[in-house]
C-alpha cells in the first residue's frame, strides 16, 4: 500500500505570555491509500489539533513548531498558504462536529456547493449544480434537485451532516478528516452516518481519519487506531488488536472503563484514577505515570519512546510505554 499521508514528528505549540505550550508533541503516523484510521482520545488529548495541523489550519497563537506532513509524497506542511488552499477542500476535505456551524445559514446549500466547486475548478453554474446533485444523491439525500434550493435550517441534524459530507466529496478528495462527525447526533443517525462513511470509502478508495472520543464508534469503522493522551500518540495498531489486546495501560484502562454489557451488568466499572493533566501541568517522564497502575521508577524520570509491540498472529503495533522496553528487564 503506497503512503497517502505521512505525519512525522508533528509538534504544535501555542505561544502564550507565560511561554510556549505544547499541544501536540511529536506525533507520527502514516495512512495508506483508501485506509481508515481512528484518532481516539479524551477531551484535551490533542486529537483535534492533530487534525487541524495536518492541513495547516492552526490559528494564532498556535503554530507548527516541528515535524512535517507528506501528502502523496509532497511536503504540504512547508507550502505557502496559497498553495495549501488548493489542497484543502480539494484533495483533502474536512468534516466537523457541528453541521449548523459549518454551513452558512443565509445561503442555500446549492450556492454553498457551487461556490466550493468553483473555488477549485473552472466550471460553469449548471455543470457545478449537476455535480452537486450527484454528490447529494451519493450521500442518500432524497430529491436532491429540490433540496439544492433549500437553506440549512430546513434540514434535520442528520441531513445537514450528510450535506457537509456531500460538500466534502465535491472535488473527489483522496482523504477526508472527520472531527467528531457524529457527536452531536442521535445514535440511530450516528449509525447511518458511519455506514455512509464506510460505503464511500469502499466506493472511492478514499482515505479517512476519524477523530473521536468514542472507541466503540471507531472500532466499528476503522482499520487502524491511534490512541492519544496529553498531546501524544501512546498506542497505535490494527483496530482489532488495540480493542481486544490493548497494550498501553491507558488504552487498557479506557477500554475497561466502558460498560461491556451482558454478564458485567451492575458491576463496578474499572476507573482510571485522576484526570488527564492540563497542558500547563504535564508531569515529567511519561505523562500517564501518575494515573498508571504499572508505573515504575523510570516512568517519572524519562518519557518512553514509541516501542514496537507484537501480537501472537505476527501483527505488530506501537506503544509508548516503558513496559515494552526490552532493556528494562521483564514486565
Amino acid at each position, binding site marked *: 500500500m503506497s503512503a497517502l499521508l505521512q505525519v512525522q514528528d508533528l509538534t504544535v505549540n501555542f505561544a502564550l505570555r507565560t511561554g510556549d505550550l505544547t499541544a501536540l508533541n511529536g506525533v507520527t503516523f502514516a495512512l495508506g491509500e483508501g485506509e481508515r484510521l481512528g484518532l481516539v482520545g479524551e477531551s484535551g488529548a490533542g486529537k483535534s489539533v492533530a487534525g487541524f495541523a495536518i492541513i495547516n489550519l492552526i490559528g494564532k497563537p498556535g503554530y507548527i513548531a516541528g515535524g512535517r506532513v507528506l501528502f502523496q509524497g509532497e511536503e504540504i506542511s512547508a507550502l505557502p498558504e496559497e498553495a495549501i488552499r488548493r489542497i484543502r477542500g480539494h484533495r483533502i476535505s474536512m468534516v466537523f462536529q457541528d453541521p449548523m456551524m459549518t454551513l452558512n445559514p443565509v445561503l442555500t446549500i446549492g450556492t454553498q456547493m457551487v461556490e466550493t466547486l468553483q473555488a477549485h475548478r473552472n466550471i460553469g453554474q449548471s455543470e457545478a449544480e449537476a455535480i452537486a446533485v450527484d454528490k447529494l444523491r451519493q450521500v442518500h439525500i432524497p430529491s436532491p434537485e429540490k433540496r439544492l434550493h433549500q437553506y440549512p435550517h430546513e434540514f434535520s441534524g442528520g441531513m445537514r451532516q450528510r450535506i457537509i459530507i456531500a460538500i466534502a466529496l465535491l472535488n473527489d478528495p483522496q482523504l477526508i478528516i472527520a472531527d467528531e462527525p457524529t457527536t452531536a447526533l442521535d445514535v440511530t443517525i450516528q449509525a447511518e452516518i458511519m455506514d455512509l462513511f464506510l460505503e464511500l470509502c469502499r466506493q472511492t478508495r478514499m482515505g479517512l481519519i476519524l477523530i473521536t*472520543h468514542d472507541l466503540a464508534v471507531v472500532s466499528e469503522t476503522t482499520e487502524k487506531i491511534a490512541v492519544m493522551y496529553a498531546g501524544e500518540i501512546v498506542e497505535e495498531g490494527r483496530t482489532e488488536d488495540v480493542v481486544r489486546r490493548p497494550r498501553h495501560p491507558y488504552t487498557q484502562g479506557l477500554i475497561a472503563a466502558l460498560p461491556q454489557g451482558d454478564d458485567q*451488568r451492575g458491576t463496578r466499572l474499572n476507573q482510571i484514577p485522576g*484526570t*488527564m493533566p492540563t497542558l500547563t501541568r504535564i508531569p515529567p517522564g511519561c505523562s500517564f505515570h501518575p494515573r498508571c497502575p504499572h508505573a515504575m521508577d523510570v516512568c517519572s524520570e524519562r518519557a518512553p519512546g514509541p516501542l514496537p509491540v507484537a501480537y501472537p498472529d505476527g501483527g505488530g503495533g506501537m506503544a509508548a510505554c516503558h513496559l515494552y522496553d526490552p532493556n528494562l528487564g521483564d514486565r
Partner: protein
Amino acid sequence: MNAPFSDKTKPLLSVRDLSKIFDISGGFLDQLTLKNGRLRREKTTVKALNRVSFDIAPGETFSVVGESGCGKSTLGRTVIGLYPPDGGEVHYGGERIDTLSSRRMLPFRRRMQMVFQDPYASLNPRKRVAAILEEPLRFHHPDMTADEVGDRVKEVMEQVGGDVQWLTRLPHEFSGGQRQRISIARALVVDPEFIVADEPISALDVSIQAQILNLMMDAREQRGLTYMFIAHDLSVVEHISTRVAVMYLGSLCEVADVDRLFADPRHPYTRALLSAIPRLGKKKSDHVRLKGEVPTPINLPTGCVFHGRCLYADERCVREIPELLKQDDGVLAACHGVEEGRL
C-alpha cells in the same frame, strides 16, 4: 381502565397518564394569523408528554432512554415537580403530589432530589462549595446547628470521593468530573430516597464517566436509593439499570427489565435503537434503517407516533394509538404489531 401494572411490591413512584404541553406561540402578536380573510388567534403547542404511565419500585434503577427531543428530560422534571403537568397524576409513596401546594410539597422535595446534566451550569459560580452544599441542608433542616451542618457536609463530601479542602473553593476551580461529584453531593446531603439523574455523565470523558457511575452505584448500595436515570447512552443504561423505558416523541414504546429489553426487544423502535449502539469490536454493520425522520411534536402523527418510520406499520397503526400492554413475560409494549402477534 385496564391496569397493566401489578407489581407485587408497592411502588415508590407511580405516574399515570402524565401529559405535558408547552406553549411556544410567543406573544400576542405572534399568535395572530390570517385565515380565510379573517384574523384569528392561534396557539402553537408542543406535546412533550402524551399520557405516560409507569411505576418505579423502591430500590430500582429505572432508566428512560430515547433520542433528543423525545421528552425524557421533560418527564424527569415533571415527575419531580419542576414542571406542573397538564394532565395525569404523580404519586409518591402512596400520596398524590402533583396537586400539592408548594408548602405541602416541601417534605417531598427533600425526599426527591435531582442531578443535572451540565455540571458547569448547575452549580452557582459565585458560591463556594461549602455554601452550595449547606444551603439545601439549612433549608430543609432549619433546626440543625452550624456544627451539625458542617459535619454533614464534610461527611457527604468524603462519600462522593471529594476532599474537605474542596469546600472552600469555587466551582470554576474544578474539572467536569469533580463538579459532577459536587452536584451529586448536593443531592445526597439532604438524605433523599429518590434521585432523578438527567444525563449525569453525558458531558464527561469516558474514564471520568466510569468514576461517576461507580459513585452512583455505590451510593445506591449504601443508602438504598432509587434512581430514575435519564440517558441517551444505551450501553451505560444497560450497565446500571434494573428496568428501562424507551421513549419516542413523548410516548412510551416499551418498558421492560434490562435483561429482557436488551436480549429480546419487542417494539420496532427499540429494535432499531439497540441495533444502532456502537459496540467495541463489532465488525459487521447490522443497523436497522428507519424510514424518514422524527416528526415534530407540534403536529403529532395520528395513531401510533412511530408509524411514519416503522417498517411494519399498517392501516391500524395510522388510525389507532396503541396502548402500553403487558406481554406474557411482563414486558410492556405499545405496538399493534406486537399485540397482534405479527412482530
